[in-house]
């Protein structure tokens, strides 16, 4: 008999996601928010933009739209979209009582964990890339596929700007990956989908709260919320890699223990319910 492996679990987790409403809720939000944002820009009377990074570029280049979406999406939208699946992927097995069903087949617990974690990460990547792509398309329709001004004031061509947007989205996935890890941990520990989703979002918001507390500004470079801005280093001339490198190790500092704890809890837990 050819034994099943992680890929079997991964494939079926993706199939299961296709049949669940929360998947479409998350991907739908990723798709619709940039469109609503662009429609709002279109109907704004004051078209000079707001008081935030890239705001003034919004009407000059559609490539500024994904950057603004990334900026504001970090507050709660993308953490919530990520948590919708990461927080649910183990807890829903408890809710449906199906953990005992799959754990008595021919797969080790570690393989099931790996397959599920990969599926949650895949969904998060899909949600971010979908949101970014829709923002690029909608923004380009609204403001044109034009050259983009960097944070250093230099101007890059539209194709170069597009490349920076997508590399920026990849950098954005670093803290998103940590949110996935926290979601998986809470999903494994709480065994309750709602608690895990809300808990993951709360953790994300807590980091932002710590960031604005007076006297704790020294912690800011080491907070998860700060790492959501690491991609802005790409928009400097020359590229500033230091926030990206810091994001990698700071996110690993939070994400790796969370993932390891989730793995151990899942490996050792008694499946007494269902």
């Amino acid at each position, binding site marked *: *008999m*050819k*034994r*099943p492996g992680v890929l*079997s*679990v991964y*494939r*079926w987790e993706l*199939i*299961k996601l296709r*049949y*669940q409403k929360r998947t479409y809720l998350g991907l739908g939000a990723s798709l619709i928010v940039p469109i609503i944002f662009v429609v709002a820009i279109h109907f704004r009377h004051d078209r000079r933009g707001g008081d935030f990074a890239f705001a003034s570029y919004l009407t000059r280049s559609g490539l500024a739209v994904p950057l603004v979406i990334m900026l504001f999406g970090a507050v709660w939208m993308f953490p919530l979209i990520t948590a919708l699946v990461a927080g649910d992927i183990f807890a829903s097995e408890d809710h*449906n*009582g*199906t953990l*005992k*069903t*799959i*754990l*008595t*087949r*021919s*797969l*080790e*617990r570690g393989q099931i964990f790996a397959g599920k974690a990969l599926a949650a990460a895949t969904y998060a990547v899909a949600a971010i890339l979908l949101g970014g792509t829709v923002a690029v398309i909608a923004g380009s329709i609204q403001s044109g596929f034009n050259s983009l001004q960097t944070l250093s004031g230099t101007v890059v061509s539209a194709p170069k700007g597009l490349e920076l947007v997508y590399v920026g989205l990849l950098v954005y996935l670093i803290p998103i990956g940590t949110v996935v890890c926290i979601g998986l941990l809470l999903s494994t520990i709480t065994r309750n989908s709602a608690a895990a989703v809300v808990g993951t979002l709360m953790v994300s918001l807590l980091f932002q709260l710590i960031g604005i507390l007076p006297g704790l500004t020294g912690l800011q470079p080491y907070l998860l919320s700060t790492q959501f801005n690491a991609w802005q280093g790409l928009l400097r001339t020359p590229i500033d890699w230091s926030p990206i490198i810091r994001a990698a190790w700071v996110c690993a500092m939070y994400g790796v223990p969370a993932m390891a704890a989730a793995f151990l809890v899942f490996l*050792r837990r*008694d*499946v*007494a319910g*269902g």
Partner: protein
Amino acid sequence: MSVPRRGSDTDAPPPVEVRGLVKRYGELTAVDGVDLTVRAGDVYGYLGPNGAGKTTSLRMMLGLIRPTSGSVRLFGRDPQQSVKALDDVAGFVEAPTFYPYLTARRNLELLAAYDGDEARSRVDHALATVELTGRARDRVGGYSHGMKQRLGIAAALLREPKLMILDEPATGLDPAGMRDMRQLIRGLAEQGITVVLSSHLLAEVEELCNRVAIVREGRIVYEGMISELKRGAGTTYRLATTDDERALAVCRAQRGINDLRVQHQRICFTASGEAAVAELSQALVEAGALIHTLAPETVTLEDLFFSLTEGRDGDRMASEDPDSVEVAR
């Protein structure tokens, strides 16, 4: 219904070998030193009242719960060490569960994928075996309890097991569903599959199983053949005569007549053997107490179950039945 034929290898380790199995939850000891052996070809009843620790034991056998101490071996392999110990094992504990948003077929395809590629080719046959082919494209969320039970059997059959562990498979089924489930289990046994069956339906267990373990408060109070259990319990006889007072006096004086009591206006006793009963009938006739009825009342598994899990059967019946009076010699 037909099931795949599997052979049994008598030289191989037993399908289930449990030694000193203990599970504690804080102060509560759910399973307390369980020892049992299920041999190849057994249809093994695992009986006990609610809360006796049956399901916890079954979960430990399937590797779902870690024992506090003790060991489980399935065909000689430890399910706590590797899921490979479950290679020849299938079944379910409590109600079988599936993804409600997937169809029955999708659920079975998923489980087949988790069993290895070969299992996928058995999906159609498994669905046909439990007569769910016509509903295979319906979401399981809309299934009745009985249909889920049948789908649970189908999911187990995908693995072509040598050992099936079934926890209350007939619970919640209508009479026809229970009959079908009985036939299915009988079919599994006839095909050489070893079955461990946990059930509250004692008549069903008595009909299907050759060996039982009876568990009380986490401990095994009997393990062995049902026939031996019944033989050990002896046979109760019921007697009605034209003159029961005289008959009682005869019974008291007769050797080999024990546990004499009056119950439901009938004289009841156990006998040391058939010869003692024959001698008694002769003595009754000689004493002028003509016999209306003298019949053995075979003890059922249910009687023995209550006797073992709630105390002595006679005590229980006497305490519950105001008409039951023990007779002093």
